[in-house]
């Protein structure tokens, strides 16, 4: 992972990089992040972060992460890969509504009155999954009081600039520039 930090204080810069690494490790996406750039200016105050991730490989079928069986009341799903449990449940809620999806235990779900064939069609988008995790990491990282945010997002890059009171136009332009630089970044030659 390429890491570049611009900021006036060495200790603060280093500790934010360390913090980001710990968060990525905690969420389990360290290997998916290719490059990250921080611009930290406590006196403005301004906090900018841009993250470039690897392209996630396609969709994952429900049969790869769970066992499906047809019952009298509907279809039973027994999740075998817990990593995907939250996203699978939220996808089921989205598709069929909360009243038809009953979580019997931590990893068992009953889809009331839904046919097994329908369930077997479900697939989870890995790219979307990764994006959610990166966003989660960024929310955990950003300074808490910096509520005014401007974000940019493309296929595998997310850039967020945050401040405390007023978002200046020049900071938005800065975020756009950093985002554009990330787009053309060649990770192999490694210069941010």
């Amino acid at each position, binding site marked *: 992972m390429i890491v570049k930090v611009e900021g006036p*204080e060495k200790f603060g810069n280093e500790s934010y990089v360390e913090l980001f690494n710990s968060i990525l490790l905690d969420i389990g996406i360290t290997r998916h992040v290719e490059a990250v750039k921080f611009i930290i200016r406590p006196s403005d105050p301004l906090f900018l972060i841009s993250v470039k991730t690897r392209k996630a490989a396609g969709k994952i079928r429900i049969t790869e992460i769970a066992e499906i069986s047809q019952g009298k009341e509907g279809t039973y799903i027994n999740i075998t890969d817990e990593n995907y449990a939250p996203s699978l449940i939220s996808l089921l809620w989205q598709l069929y509504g909360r009243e038809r999806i009953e979580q019997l235990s931590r990893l068992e779900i009953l889809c009331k009155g839904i046919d097994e064939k329908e369930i077997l069609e479900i697939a989870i988008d890995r790219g979307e999954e990764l994006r959610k995790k990166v966003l989660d990491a960024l929310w955990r990282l950003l300074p808490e*009081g910096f509520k005014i945010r401007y974000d940019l997002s493309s296929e595998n890059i997310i850039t967020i600039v945050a401040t*405390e009171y007023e978002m200046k136009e020049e900071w938005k332009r800065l975020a756009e520039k950093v985002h554009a630089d990330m787009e053309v970044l060649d990770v192999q030659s490694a210069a941010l």
Partner: protein
Amino acid sequence: MYKVLLFDGGVYRVNELYELVEDVGGFIIQKTQTHVQILVTLAIPEEERDVIERKSQELGAKLTEIPLGGTEIAVVAPTLGRHHMPHPVCDIAEHLRRYGAITVVMGLARGKGRKSAQISAEEKALINEYDAAVFVLGNFEDCIKTEKVRLFEDIRVPVVVVCGPAIDGLPNCKAVVSGVCRRVERMRRAEDIAKLEEIAEKVSKVIEERRRIIDEDPLFVHPAEVRQRIEDLPAVQKSLRPAPIVLHLDGLRVKIPYHEWKDQLASIDVYGRKLKEIAELSDSRLDGSTLIRIYSASKVESMNQLESKKLLCDQASAHAKE
């Protein structure tokens, strides 16, 4: 000056220790007994330590100094949200407990942000009820030096700041410990433990300094003596709150409602005087608690003189009327 020590030994002949502590003018602060083992927290005059040490050896017990025994310390963070410092804050509070302090973790209501970080008068008043406050701040020197210093501006009790960058000193603050930054895991590594030790050491120094200042004009009675007289109150015995009586350097906090119990507390006998004559009783900002601040011996003395003068004046005017 009193030293607070922890006696870790058996119950066999422990009464000899109690008697000795009493003989040298010390106090038993707390006893915790499990089967035949007993932990006794005691306060003794500094110069009598050798005598107690010898007795402990004789009884086959371990005697350790707990520099923060008999104190209550607030560990304050800008907020207790995961963006701030819940892990270091809890670890610091826990480590100070190992040194004998009772600690309270506090998150400010509006402490987040740089310029927008605030502390209310109510929060400051609450912090002032403790013996010392440890403020755990963030990663950037500029932010701490220009904005966060406002958080502990009017706090009367000694403040120790724990933060990331190396800062020599800050206004209104007795000590600074650097090298503790925002993190997502507990402080478990060897260097983290060393840092926790450093914090406990600095806090101990600050507390010792305060003890010396109090000792220059000593309290009328030691808080532990007042504790002995209060712990028999039915309300205290029935209190289900952890540590219903907490010792402070200059008094104590009793976790029973002030408005309900002030009269009973005020009339407790301490060496022939009522408690209200030798201490100030007030309603604590911590819900359902009473704060007792013991007056110094000189203050009690001057109050006595004033009272006897007033009595003489009254008698004289009564004679004149006759």
